[in-house]
């Protein structure tokens, strides 16, 4: 079983966790012994980190609302539609009619890109995340 080091997704401690992979699926979580935070152990959430990754309720295709129902569509349709709607609102109501919520669960790179998207592409500082919640 291959063991790959990553960082726990839950609290701000930031434990080093090895995820064990078998047949392309993540089937195990275990602590790094030398990681400065985890030091060989995890809390109960960290030990079960792998359990949600392959949960059957994972979203696996883009969804688009049609006739007031979310239905599976291809990536191009979902992205084209989103880009069009964001542009329309920006052009008719101004950039500040748009707002973005980024995520304390996403990486630095993704947060950086989303705020860049907000400021450079949409032209608004309306971006925040749930730091206070």
């Amino acid at each position, binding site marked *: 079983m291959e063991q790959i080091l990553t960082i726990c997704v839950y609290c701000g401690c930031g434990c080093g966790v090895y995820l064990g*992979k078998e047949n392309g699926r993540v089937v195990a979580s275990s602590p790094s012994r030398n990681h400065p935070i985890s030091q060989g152990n995890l809390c109960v*959430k960290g030990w079960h980190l792998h359990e949600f990754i392959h949960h059957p309720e994972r979203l696996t295709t883009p969804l688009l609302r049609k006739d007031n129902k979310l239905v599976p569509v291809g990536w191009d349709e979902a992205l084209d539609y989103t880009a069009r709607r964001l542009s329309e609102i920006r052009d008719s109501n101004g950039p500040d009619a748009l707002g973005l919520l980024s995520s304390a669960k996403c*990486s*630095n790179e993704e947060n950086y890109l989303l705020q860049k998207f907000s400021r450079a592409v949409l032209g608004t500082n309306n971006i925040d995340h749930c730091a206070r919640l």
Partner: protein
Amino acid sequence: MAGLATAFGSGAMTNSINELEDVDVVIVSGSNTTEAHPQIARRILAAVDRGAKLIVIDPRRTALAQEAHVHLALRPGTDIALLNGMMRIILDEGLADDHFIEMRTENFIALRDQLFKIDLDEIAAITGVDRQLMHTAACLYARAYKSTFCYCLGITQHICGTNNVQTIANMAMLTGNVEKENAGVDPLRGQNNVQGACDMAALPACLPGYQSLADMQIRQKFKQCWGVDVPLTPGRTVLDMTHSGHNGTLRGMFVMGENPILSDPDQTKVQATLEGLDFLAVSDIFLTETAQLAHVVFPAASFAEKSGTVTNSERRVQYMHQVIEPIGECKPDSTIIAELAERMGYEMYYESMAEVMEEIALLIPIYGGMHHDRLRSSWGLQWPCPNRDHPGTPFLHKHYFSGGKGHFTPAQHQEPFEPPGDAFPLTLITGRIYHHYHTGTMTRRCASLNRESDKALLQINPVDATTSAIRNGDLVELTSRRGTIRLWAQISEDIRPGQVYTTFHFSEAPVNLLTTGAADPIAKCPEFKVCAVKVARVES
């Protein structure tokens, strides 16, 4: 965070997590550390076993409070009064660090004048904390050479959250407990990358790295890199967006990996706002309560299906290795954003996340030396790390505060927005429990965790339970001015009469139907820790 930035010039944990093992005295306030930050609690308990003194400030008798030498069980929302009282005692006992105050701080006179007006009996009445206990705690904290003050959302999630934090900073500076190893002020960050999201300026009022939106030089730097002018007006905060109303000026939203329906206060208002939007796009790994309202939902890759960096509570930027390929048709959020940008006519092509990090290093001075090759082969680097040769910074403000001198900002007690009264006689405190995390999107889908804890419990004191004829395990209804939820009673002496406690992990019992939208005017942090409720048994 705003409070700490005013005082010290920077709003992050001043020390490293492992430094906690070597403190002499540690105060933990508004943090159920053993459940919400188990690794930090592990360090605190190790320090206690080594002989350190532990002071816990919390209305509830948490597991850590049971290990504490002094437990100050204050009335919710009276932190400023309590700390002001402790500072007054420190002054009276001659335990202030005059030399530190003189050399490193400014505006002390204002604090001193305010503290001398305080009547300690009045403080005891406001906080419900015994004067003698307050005295013991103040002396323990001030006499030790290395005292650390850890706090969490129990401090910030009040309408006076910023002032709460400033008061903590005041107390640390008053006793010279900053600028050194094992001593400082440590806000414990609740999410794996909440620090990083702030650092990257997923915030409405600053540019990445807390750089000023208004500074011409900085704006120029960003313009050069991004090719466009950065908008000047500060944007809306989360609550300004999610509480903006059904047909407000906000018309479209893009939500990446958050679930405001459950996480934000006053759910009814949030739902009305989101439902009234012309367009809502959500990117997430599950069909969250928020995603169910969206016009478009993007299936995002989970943390195991992509690489990137996250920044923990002690400012440690760490690399996450990709473990598996994205499942189904999922794509990483970075790809989704880049594809949208391109469709809107903005070139946002990066070969890899390493290339994004290079841009971050270029633009954010405290991340100047952070590159994937360095982060991948190490346990990460703690910012500030200004250049490639810099080893990172385990504790902040060594020899000087980031903002020059430490600034005292006196604060006064302020009653909570919604104190209990006749119709709603109980104070509801919300927080987390050990087995679950935030809105439960992930942990509720972990079979083992959900087995351990599968329903929302309401912690209630036996006195209040008896008054309402509630037995342990009864289904009860909890009602505030904004709504009603159903959950199960857990009778416990660990909560005081007049208070009840529950969590926001369970979509079946969405506690944020009840909470108030009242928030701190500066940090915009909602008052999750105090709202008035009543409880009744549900007849079976």
